[in-house]
């Protein structure tokens, strides 16, 4: 009798189980990515008026946070001078970072013209096109730098007509006996320029204290000294009114149509004060 009751109940439970299984036999495919029609490419870089080769980063908006396993790209990146429509196709170059991560950078050997507009476009048949219009700044005269290695200081004078964005001395410093103990120390002089929108300037500087602080030890060796001055056209972003979250947003700081990123025109002058010395391992 008890066995009969158990059998009856098991049949009933079995029926419930089968019903649940039928109810649940549906597809469970999960695709977290939303169809992206807003951003085709991510494009970053600068066009340098005084450089003979231009480089930009162009990456299709990916499906992975760190793209790996690169396949040959069929993205065509074109640099076009707006005033005459002259176009050059840029060359692709694969760069790898830290293991599997990679990016595509594109380059072209070309001199650009001051105060002219260029477009950088990226196109792939299936993905579509993204593009950025870049305005080049005026010519930046080479600044006059008088530098004393003894005092790690000197004077700088010059003039500029666009926004001054970088004015700094860069050092390559060995701060220990091993060649692994080297680093770059940057000392900015922007604070010494009152009007960064243009004009003549002259100032003196002494970098001994920032160098000592940056090296972290008294017995450091300076292996290289460079002076950098960069101006930028109106494309250069004004970030002071953005908070940390806003700076990261794809539409907050972008001049790329149908994509995200920023390509700006700059004029860069690099003055080598002392060339790079080989490292000395004194262990």
């Amino acid at each position, binding site marked *: 009798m008890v066995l009969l009751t158990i059998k009856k109940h098991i049949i009933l439970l079995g029926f419930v189980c089968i019903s649940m299984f039928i109810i649940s036999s549906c597809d469970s495919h999960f695709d*977290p990515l939303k169809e992206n029609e807003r951003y085709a490419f991510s494009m970053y870089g600068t066009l340098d008026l005084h450089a003979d080769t231009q*480089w930009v980063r162009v990456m299709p908006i990916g499906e992975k946070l760190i793209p790996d396993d690169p396949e040959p790209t069929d993205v065509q990146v074109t640099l076009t001078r707006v005033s005459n429509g002259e176009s050059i196709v840029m060359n692709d170059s694969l760069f790898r970072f830290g293991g599997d991560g990679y990016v595509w950078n594109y380059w072209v050997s070309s001199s650009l013209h001051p105060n002219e507009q260029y477009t950088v476009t990226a196109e792939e048949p299936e993905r579509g096109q993204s593009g950025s219009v870049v305005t080049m700044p005026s010519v930046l005269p080479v600044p006059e730098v008088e530098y004393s290695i003894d005092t790690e200081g000197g004077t700088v004078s010059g003039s500029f007509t666009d926004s001054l964005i970088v004015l700094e001395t860069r050092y390559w410093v060995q701060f220990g006996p091993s060649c692994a103990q080297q680093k770059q120390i940057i000392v900015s002089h922007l604070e010494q320029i009152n009007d960064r929108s243009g004009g003549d300037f002259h100032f003196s500087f002494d970098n001994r204290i920032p160098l000592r602080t940056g090296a972290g030890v008294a017995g450091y060796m300076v292996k290289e000294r460079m002076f950098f001055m960069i101006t930028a056209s109106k494309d250069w972003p004004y970030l002071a009114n953005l908070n940390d*979250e806003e700076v990261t*947003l794809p539409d907050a700081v972008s001049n790329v149509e149908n994509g995200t990123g*920023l390509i700006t025109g700059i004029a860069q002058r690099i003055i080598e004060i002392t060339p790079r010395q080989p490292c000395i391992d004194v262990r």
Partner: protein
Amino acid sequence: MISKKTFLVSSLLFLTLPVIQAQDVTLRGVISDRQSASPLEAANIILQRIPDGKIEGTTTDINGLFEFNRLQRAEYIFLVRYIGYKTYSDTLDLRESRYNSINVVMIISEEKEEVTVTERRLEDLDPGQTRIQGIDLRRVPTPGGSGDLASFLQSQPGVVAAGDRGGQLFIRGGTPSENLVLVDGATVYQPFHIIGFFSLFPEDVVSKVDLYAGGFGARYSGRTSSVMDVRLKNGNLYNRNWSASLSPFISELFFETPIKEGESSLMVSARGSLIESTSKLYPERQPLRFNSQLIKYSNSSNQGVNCSIHALRTYDRGKLNYKSGDFFSWTNVVTAGRCSGVSEDSNISFADVNFGVSYFSNEIGSLNLRGSSSSVIKSHIDLNMVQSIGEWRLDYGIFTNLENVNHDISGRFVSMQSDRQLFMSSGGYAELDIPVGENFSIEPGISLTTYLRKFKSSFEPRLRLSWQPRGKIGEELHVATGIYYQPLIGVSDFRDIGTAFTAWMPMPDTNRKLTSKHAIAGWRQPLGRFLKFSAEGYYKEMSNIPVSVWSSVAQFSTDLAYANGEVFGADVRLEFNHRQFYAILGYGYSWMEYETAQDHFGIWFGEPVQSYHPPHDRRHQLNIQAGFEVGNFTANINWMYGSGFPFTQPLGFDSYFSFLEGPPNIKGEFGNPRVLLDKPFEGRLPDFHRMDVSVAQEFTLPLITMIVQAGAVNAYDWENLFYYDVYTQRQINQLSFMPYISIKFGSF
């Protein structure tokens, strides 16, 4: 002008004054179980006046307390009935004293009765309340030797589990830190173990649990979502019992013994996980570990005063994302005491005092990065009293809490934040139960809390109404409403729901207070002898909910923003019990929306304010439970369905340069990895469903009894997503098909 505080104190003093009614006498007492001295709720008390045969009746409350007022001075026949126990009868002479008391210990009947759970489940429930007993826990298949409260709760409509690990339960829209869990009156901050089937509460230690999913009374304060009031069993006062069990998931020990026969007892329970080791036998390793210990000493006097002290400890550690990700760990340590008793010669019918210290700490960390930690130490004392004022019942009390909260959130990519604060709160409450006629009752209540230096005082009104239209047992319409404040908040980064870390702190902005307004309306209806139906609708309006600031960079952000929200829904339950067979169908519908304003939303979305469904917004939840018990054989199944949680869909990924420090170095740097996110929580994860099954056979051996159980978690091996990590793009799944066999043996 009379302040609110003065008004409350005056009201309490006024209400506690003796009620002078010279001719009338009062009879009160506590009905308890002889074996454990645990109070028996809903025992039927019948009093028949001998001269004229007039009968009066009442039932005991949660403390086993009954009280008759305005009795004539006479002799009475006194009867106590409780299903499963021998009927108690006595003749009482109430002609002498104004206040009379009788405490009765009930003896279990030797006669076999066919008793189903519903017959024993108590009918007198408050709005939002679910009463859970040990036998309920046993009916949900659990991969251990005993049923467990954690498994049971997840089968309830309105209770949403984040997944099968992490121990995070969301109740009617409230987050885990908004739920108050009390164990014999002491707070436990995280009683659920890292494996979602288990908690500190196996069926062996639970006397009863009252789950208030909302609309709870003025006795409970300090939390805005729900209350889980767990009453532990007392150890057996006459017999020594023990049990031990083993399964691939957990090993358990239980022991109870009288210390002094009939007066005092000891109960010990210990549990430890085995799954970390035994998961080698399963397809996927489970790096999850927990253990918990509980000890309770109880003392019962003949004068109706019961005292107990208990101590417990839990430890959990593990990864929610098995393949990589952070380690979570948490610890609870609680030691607390409680004394309660009925008063023989005062107008206060019943009083209980609770005191204790609760400690909780939790941590999140990984091998490479500095972790975050948070801890709370809370000491509390509260005094609760019951008093009758004519036909009215007054519950009132006072409480003081001292909490030391500490958090150290490194944030890993952002600047470290740490803080330690002492937080003191004191207050009182009062609740009146006013019967209006035979079938209607009104329960207004107030709770007043003052906070030392930190916040303005809280004044929280509550109101509950119930109506039994035809006076039938179990048939009731009820409504409840109230305002709830929570000054001490638990902050979790629930953007991807897969977290088990909570930073406890006072609300950082002292001008804000986490607030929730509840409204509940429900209907309970028996349908014939075997069916019961209940439905309850609810609405909650919440403000100042701490939420994480949204970022598109792959990082853990500890910055806080505030949201306002609302949730509404309905829980429906149909229960069938016929002899050995039972079936329960539960359905929960919920709709939840948060609204938050964050500085960067204007640029991101074009609108400064965004509305979204938070990640625990489960729209539909369905649960089917069925089983039977014939002789020594039992079988249970539990099928759960939940619609998908919201999540934020990525549009794609790139690496960006900020231009903050000059032109980007695209040839030398990868850039900062970035997620191009859609609007928050616009997407939905796949639906969840799972069936757990178990069958068990009890064997009676010469010296011991043994139960062998075989079962399976996720019986049809459905791939249920636990969560999707938008930054690492990892899909973390819940447990796959896991068969198990458990053995439990002992002297039960």
